[in-house]
């Protein structure tokens, strides 16, 4: 197909109106040309002989009448070995290489190849000559860091093929052919590099399953109270300063998955820098290798071109789906989906579409829903399982969850981790609200025990509210104990000190063990002379339990600290 040409007819911010000849595809990539610069853009609306384009770069200097080159291809990413450990912008340009080429600033119109072309990979063939294959089937593999990176039949090849030739073991670059396939009519050469349009999900698997297996994050309030499963979705809305990003960073470190993809979408550059600079130094507790080796960062920070924010989210999820096709468990963290929604709003305004709530476009909900629906645990053609879990933060205006982006997200996710200003002001971290949040996924704690803890939290909160009106002196001691117990759960279990090595990350078995101890405290019938005595006891118990939280689990000290807690409890429960 020969690509069409066009002429700029109007410019409004990052939106161009272009008059074109020949066929134009919705969402195809086009390049307005400014002197020797070609700026990447995407077709987002076609009306008669005019197409509206969103430009992924600053449009300063473009003129009416300037040329536009259409490509006939949808916005795509490169897939192949060499993605892990990289830092990309929203259009998959590797940022460190860009810095080498352009210096301190992101020069517009400079696009680099995502995968290193010169690097050679040790290819091991897996499929034999004559084997029957289809898209997504394994042809061979290379070692990418700690993973076996499978080279698959390109996802865009329809139908069934026979392997005619397969490369001998040896080293190849991503552009050298490693196999030749034949579908009876024509032959196709396969390299390790393939391209896939970002806005379409990769669905070369046998079936999608129901997510049931828990994804442990080592954050107690999440794993025990508001769990997430592999292949599930969750969202973290919260006002500014409540700790959304810290929570995402902790999750990216500790989550029990193979590959983590961080999509920093429209947020602070400083936070990405922390990840870029710290991750190479941090060790993955599971493998002992650098955390960076299992991470891909896609960042389009708040001052980078707005239209590329949308692209960055899709780029990230496409990379996640690619690794899922290899039977790996992938976690995608998107921070923040509100910024992406705002990019949609800006564009919608320029297109002069009829606005919905708060000027967001009417299709906001369906766009958000189809993004989260790209998560899931799947059974591949050869029976292995792979998963993509998506966790997105939401930054609601004024911290008010009644706004369109939060509401549209809540409809489609499986867990809601609502952050509260109240808790972050009180320095109760992580500031996830224990009464407002919810999860539809099963927890590692037995259901009945969890129910009791939840009820205790709710009742304790009620007593606290009441005490604000009638004062401590007007509260019955039984109610006061309920309140103290709820504060105890909060202080020793829900709150976690991210800066402490032991307390900062609690593995699943330790959580189960801790929760049993907690449960015995909640169940205990305690006797106190007066409220001051009760308060003093709980202060001491909290201190002792917090100390216990900071001791490594397999030590004698740990057992001693636990005994101390049991003894303290025995002293106030005479009949137990």
């Amino acid at each position, binding site marked *: 197909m020969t690509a069409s040409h066009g002429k700029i007819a109007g410019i409004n911010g990052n939106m161009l109106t272009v008059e074109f000849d020949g066929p134009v595809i919705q969402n195809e990539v086009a390049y307005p040309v400014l002197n020797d610069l070609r700026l990447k853009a995407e077709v987002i609306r076609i009306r008669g002989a005019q197409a509206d384009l969103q430009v992924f770069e600053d449009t300063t200097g473009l*003129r009416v009448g300037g040329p536009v080159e259409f490509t006939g291809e949808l916005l795509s990413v490169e897939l192949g070995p060499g993605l892990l450990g990289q830092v990309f912008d929203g259009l998959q340009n590797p940022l460190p290489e860009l*810095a080498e080429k352009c210096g301190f600033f992101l020069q517009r119109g400079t696009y680099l190849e995502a995968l290193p072309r010169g690097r050679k990979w040790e290819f091991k063939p897996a499929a034999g000559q004559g084997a029957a294959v289809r898209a997504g089937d394994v042809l061979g593999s290379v070692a990418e860091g700690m993973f076996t990176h499978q080279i698959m039949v390109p996802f865009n090849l329809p139908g069934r093929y026979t392997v005619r030739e397969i490369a001998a073991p040896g080293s190849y670059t991503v552009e050298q052919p490693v196999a030749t396939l034949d579908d009876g009519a024509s032959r196709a050469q396969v390299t390790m590099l393939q391209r896939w349009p970002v806005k379409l999900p990769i669905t070369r698997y046998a079936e999608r399953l129901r997510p049931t297996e828990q994804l442990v994050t080592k954050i107690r309030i999440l794993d025990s109270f508001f769990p997430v499963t592999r292949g599930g979705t969750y969202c973290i809305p919260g006002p500014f300063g409540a700790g959304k990003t810290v929570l995402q960073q902790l999750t990216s470190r500790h989550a029990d998955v193979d590959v983590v993809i961080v999509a920093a979408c429209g947020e602070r*550059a400083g936070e990405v820098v922390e990840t870029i600079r710290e991750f190479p130094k941090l060790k993955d507790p599971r493998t002992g290798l650098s955390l960076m080796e299992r991470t891909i960062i896609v960042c389009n920070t*708040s001052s980078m071109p707005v239209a590329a924010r949308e692209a960055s989210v899709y780029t990230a999820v496409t990379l996640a789906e690619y690794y899922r096709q290899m039977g790996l468990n992938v976690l995608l963290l998107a921070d923040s989906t509100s910024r992406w929604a705002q990019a949609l709003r800006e564009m919608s305004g320029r297109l002069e579409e009829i606005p919905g709530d708060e000027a967001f476009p009417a299709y906001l909900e369906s766009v958000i829903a189809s993004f989260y629906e790209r998560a899931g645990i799947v059974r591949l053609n050869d029976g292995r399982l792979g998963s993509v879990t998506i966790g997105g933060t939401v930054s609601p205006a004024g911290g008010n969850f009644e706004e369109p982006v939060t509401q549209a997200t809540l409809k489609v996710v499986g867990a809601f981790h609502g952050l509260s200003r109240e808790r972050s002001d009180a320095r109760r971290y992580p500031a996830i609200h224990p009464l407002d949040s919810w999860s539809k996924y099963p927890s590692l704690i037995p259901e009945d025990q969890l129910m009791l803890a939840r009820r205790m939290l709710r009742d304790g909160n009620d007593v606290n509210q009441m005490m604000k009106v009638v004062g401590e002196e007007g509260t019955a001691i039984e109610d006061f104990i309920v309140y103290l117990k709820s504060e105890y759960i909060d202080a020793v279990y829900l709150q976690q000190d991210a800066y402490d090595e032991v307390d900062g990350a609690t593995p699943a078995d330790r959580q189960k063990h801790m929760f049993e101890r907690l449960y015995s405290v909640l169940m205990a019938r305690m006797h106190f002379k007066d409220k001051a005595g009760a308060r003093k006891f709980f202060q001491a118990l909290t201190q002792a339990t917090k100390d216990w939280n900071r001791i490594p689990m397999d030590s004698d000290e740990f057992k001693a600290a636990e005994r101390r807690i049991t003894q303290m409890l025995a002293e106030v429960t005479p009949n137990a």
Partner: protein
Amino acid sequence: MRRIYNRVERIAGNVISVRAQNVSYRELAQVASGRGVSLTQVIRLQGDMVSLQVFEGARGIATNAEVRFLGHPMRTAFSSALLGRVFTGSGAPRDRGPVLDENLTDIGGPSVNPAKRIIPRRMIRTGIPMIDVFNTLVESQKLPVFSVAGEPYNPLLARIAMQAEVDIIILGGMGLKHDDYLYFRDTLEENGALSRSILFIHTAADPTVECLMVPDISLAVAERFALQGKRVLVLLTDMTNFADALKEIAITMEQIPSNRGYPGDLYSQLAARYEKAVDFDGAGSITTLAATTMPGDDVTHPVPDNTGYITEGQFYLRNGRIEPFGSLSRLKQLVNGKTRADHRTIMNSMIQLYASYRESLEKMSMGFRMSDWDRKLIKYGERFEKEMMDLNVNIPLEKALDLGWIIMADCFEPAETGIPTRMIEQFWPKK
């Protein structure tokens, strides 16, 4: 090529439209009116219809006014000759000095590659305990001062500028009262800092739209100095005026407003400016402090709200003091572990005790019975407010930490403070 046009098709608000060919997006043009020549910028192109925002206001522009396109976007001169000078929002001299046009650089340039940033690591000392001890300012941080209109945010900015150890100070004033402008200038002069300062001043008397350029021009100059290895402090006051000017243009251009009339891209617009704060890998840095007035003391107002999501913390100025609750320096953890061993302990303990003091105050006002503990807290709270929170207090960090121990020792027994025994043994003042 024809660059001069004599027919204005449309005048609405501060936006004029002319029919012209071969005009590039964001290009500048001059328009002549009865009041002189004013600068305009292309903000929309539609066929041959060009919309221009007039920085000095469209009032007095005739339909046959002369519009001359300049063929380049907004630029600023850059050289060390800028130091000690005062300019308007569009870069013209406001003092009696000469016009500068050497080394012209585009303003509003591309953003910094995150791969060329480094994690900030240097503390900026201000001599204000509420900042140094509790919410340490860090080089390359971007931080707004949220306050209502009557609060002394400008004196606070001036004081930080005077005491911060930086190479260059750039002040961007937007809708600044003339008195405040003179106050800044005189303060800088009295302290001998004017020779390392550059002022871009848009006063309340100037046309609103002209303030749109102030942040960009200030930051473009800051960026060039930072690239030369200088440590630059940029003060912007008041960013709410900037946002209001954005709103005015957006409404004139018939954009659909998102929240209280502000345009949908308010977040991106503010972020493009704040994100210029940077610590370059292998060059200098830009630190940005920006006053943001909150209409009606409402932090959920779109301007402070969007700002809060962009910046690395915020200082709340309330009743002439930096409020300990709500104020936050997101980067303080990067530096306060390296100052003195007791820094974090003092920071946490004193605020927790102060929070308890507030609870006791509330109890007292409700008429509940006061315990001994409550009385101790009230004594503590009053001393804390007087000796640490007051903005007139000017002591270095180490003195402030010592003072913290003294106040606590005067009010409490060591065990009542919840401070770990290890720290008590080392730092609790012996009587």
